């Protein structure tokens, strides 16, 4: 739970904002994310707003699209609200850490075994979406929200919600540049191969702490899979199912996403997750007694 700043909204629809999800000064966060609560105290939500540089209407259209999906491994979009100029969406709160917060809690790049399970779960989520013709279009470190039961992809369509004319998408949306496939810079559409490129960048981030590492920085066991995901040529990138098989050889496809059981996580990461949960449990709306 991170403190609100002066320029943060006090209310989002019927919800009162309690805190930010992302730490102050976080880079590469394509959406503004808040913990918020209904006036009767009964409902605590994670609320998402477009980042100030983006196109709110486009963002709202993407959110509307995401609300129609019940894709395993995707952070659900529950309620849509607001106006065209100030759209938002929300879903019931559950403890979740953006990937950068996971690295911060752990104290650096994550161990290879954890990178493999996180990456494998994300690859499976993308694979099951791609099969249906759904392209996520917003895969980035901050878009990965780690829950007790594994990672979920949020920021659906963040790349598509970018005004295409002129400016580089990254500047406008706050998307990490390392997550944008080279063909996008040339004005190409966000497609499945671009999702795989971004997945490679997320894996690189989890394993080294940044999205564009030198090859030798990457742990030897992950070097090949990360490099091939980040091929300049879209044709050269593997299908997500292939990435899953590389990361977790022998894993049963479909077994990772949608888990309702806690996954093994390092102590410091569990500590950060449970601390967030405890802080939100203890938080009370400002004007009332408890």
């Amino acid at each position, binding site marked *: 739970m991170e403190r609100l700043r002066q320029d943060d909204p006090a209310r989002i629809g019927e919800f009162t904002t309690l805190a930010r999800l992302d730490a102050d000064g976080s880079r590469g966060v394509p959406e503004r994310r808040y913990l918020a609560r209904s006036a009767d105290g009964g409902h605590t939500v994670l609320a998402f707003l477009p980042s100030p540089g983006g196109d709110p209407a486009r963002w709202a259209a993407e959110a509307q699209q995401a609300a129609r999906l019940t894709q395993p491994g995707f952070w659900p979009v529950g309620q849509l609200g607001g106006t065209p100029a100030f759209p938002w969406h929300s879903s019931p709160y*559950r403890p979740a850490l953006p990937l950068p917060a996971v690295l911060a809690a752990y104290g650096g790049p994550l161990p290879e075994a954890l990178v493999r399970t996180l990456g494998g779960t994300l690859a499976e989520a993308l694979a099951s979406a791609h099969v249906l013709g759904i392209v996520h279009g917003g895969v980035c470190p901050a878009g990965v929200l780690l829950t007790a039961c594994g990672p979920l992809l949020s920021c659906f369509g963040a790349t598509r919600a970018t005004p295409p004319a002129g400016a580089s998408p990254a500047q406008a949306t706050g998307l990490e540049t390392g997550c944008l496939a080279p063909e996008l810079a040339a004005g190409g559409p966000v497609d499945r191969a671009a999702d795989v490129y971004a997945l490679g960048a997320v894996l690189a981030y989890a394993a080294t702490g940044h999205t564009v590492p030198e090859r030798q920085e990457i742990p030897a066991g992950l070097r090949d899979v990360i490099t091939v995901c980040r091929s300049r040529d879209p044709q050269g990138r593997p299908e997500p199912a292939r990435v899953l098989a590389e990361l977790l050889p022998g894993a049963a496809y479909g077994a990772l996403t949608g888990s309702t059981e806690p996954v093994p996580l390092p102590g410091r990461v569990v500590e950060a997750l449970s601390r967030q949960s405890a802080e939100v449990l*203890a938080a009370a709306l400002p004007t009332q*007694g408890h």
Partner: protein
Amino acid sequence: MISPLLHDDPHTVGPFRILARLGGGGMGTVYLARSAGGRTVAVKTLHTRLAADTTLRTRFRLETDAARVIGSDHGAVVVDADPQAPTPWLATEYVLGPPLDAAVEASGPLPEPAVRALGAALAAGLEQLHRSEVVHRDLKPSNILVTAQGPRIIDFGIARAFGDEHLTSVGSAVGTPAFMSPEQAAGLEHAAAGDVFALAGVLVFAATGVGPFGGGAPTDLLYRVRFGEPDLGGVPESLRPLLVRCLAKDPAHRPSTTELRTALGGAGVTPGDRGGFADLLPDAVLREIARRSDQVWHQPPHRLPPPVPTEAPRSETAAAPGVSRRRLLTVAGGALLGGGLLGGGGWALFAGTGDDGGGGTKKDAVDRPKPPAQLWSTTIRCPDAGGEVMRAGRNLVVRAGIVLCGINAESGKGTWQANIAETWRSATDGTRVYALRGYTEDAAALAVCEVSQANGELGKPLVELSAFTGKSQYNQLLCVADGIAYLVARAASGGRWYLVAADLKSGKERWRSRVEGPQSQGFPPVLSGAVAGSQVVLCGAPSEGSKFIGLSAHDKDHGRKLWEMSETFAGTNPPSQLVLDDRNLYLGAENLTARRLSDGGLEWLLDNKPDDGAGEERRYGAPTLHDGVLYCAKADEGLIAVDALSGTLNWQEKGLSGRKNNRDVAPAIGKRYAYCVDDKGLRAIDLRARKAVWTYEAEPLVLTADAKGGHLYVRQEKRTLALPLA
């Protein structure tokens, strides 16, 4: 862990709303609860019947004091307490971690660094307590919660201040034998050094999975605690000398908590290192902590129903006081016959042949009820939507595709017909029948007319709206309430669609508000609309191939849109009637939900149970509201009755097997029976016995209970019939 509330658990304790049970025992219950500001807490209560006992009440007050003394680092933060209340209660933070005994059970004995860190933190907690002159006196694994930040000491049930003797008389051993001090086991003074003895026992348990004096009968244990040698065989070598000293029989020979903390903490966690403690814990314990951190945010489980048998069903007992509190409002077209809206006057007519002591009642007719004979039957085709039987004065009005038919309620004979082109172009207010005027070149504007109940002809327009074209087939007359007609219509220029309120008395438009136009071929923009309280509530038609329906509410007086949201909808037939009372809108599909009319927020939800065999199908059937109780079919399990206000399951039909419930047909409710549709026909469920009593062979598409007329109308594809409503 979190478990459902029992039927007699309180709804609130002090300022807190009760959500679920965390635990219970002879002395009281611990609940998960939430404050008005949304703070989640654990509330411990002392049973009201025990609160009269001054000793117990004093002990409860001391526990509250002790919990305050230990503070947030080593205990659970005290949020609020009222030891003087009729049911004394103590609210603390909800601590996210398993008790030490459950943790050791999950992971096996803890590694030495974890035992040391645990011991150092517990010693620091006791130190803090003793500094304030409080002794815990019941330290044991189940009173220690293992969080990611360190252990927390809870449950000061028998804690007391130094020298405060009046609570336990000498000789009565209070505490838990396995972790008692010898002096406590002997019924003597258990002071600070006694807590040190207990702490050592806890650490032996953490390191080996067994207490230092083993298990067995309490009397044997008490003897071993007083006179036996502790078993430290499985304890790591380096910890043994320290623990042996702590377990000395003579309190004077045991180290102080400060000494213990220093001795244990050397290799432990550096202060200020947040994740240091968690890093020492085994995976199984971390997973348990993560599970609890996540699970507390799940929708709490539903309150359990009272045990059967119990008092008469709510529909009867709650009728008189319930009606005023949860007054049922005019719904969908203003004139549906369902529910208790029209009161029960006509029922007596049929009850006379039943069991209320009227003449000619035969006992066996009550014991073995049979399906009744039909009163009348008539050939009318039932449309896909809008098939409900409406009342207009003394007559019935039904839709049959492009015509609207008047039927004599007593004989079933047709009296008139009107051509209305589409089912969504007509409505009743309970007395009169209204329809939209058909389009002609010289009458191009949208107009609402009254339909004559003598000959079915449309009268002169009551209101004519020249800003809207009468040409669109998707123009809709949603409902008429209090002399106001609510329409969805296309503007004459620009082609935009509006929700329009038109005053039928003055003939003037009151307001209009933008809405989405038709979403797919063959469907009007809005599936159903109704007026409730100060609002017009709309349920939008789903767009092609989508599982979403839009819900929205507008201010009845000014048309301002109050809220809007989209909701998933499993099943083939989205709701063609809205089920509302003055507080909530009820929908049954994957879940049974109540949404607040005030803001569209979720008031309560009965969720999916993946084991009831419904698979991908619609799980909850279309609901019916009757006297504050919501009735609907659940999967193939049978009918359920749910309190509309709270979402509490009142009861569930018993003994239904081998039937496939038709969940697209809302049940109808009489005085004695609820009527439900399944693959075998129309099933009557006795509201008292909660069991099916007969089945009438039919394939109903719509059921309408007419309490005023004493009829149950059953619409099938080609034939509509009337049965006596009992």
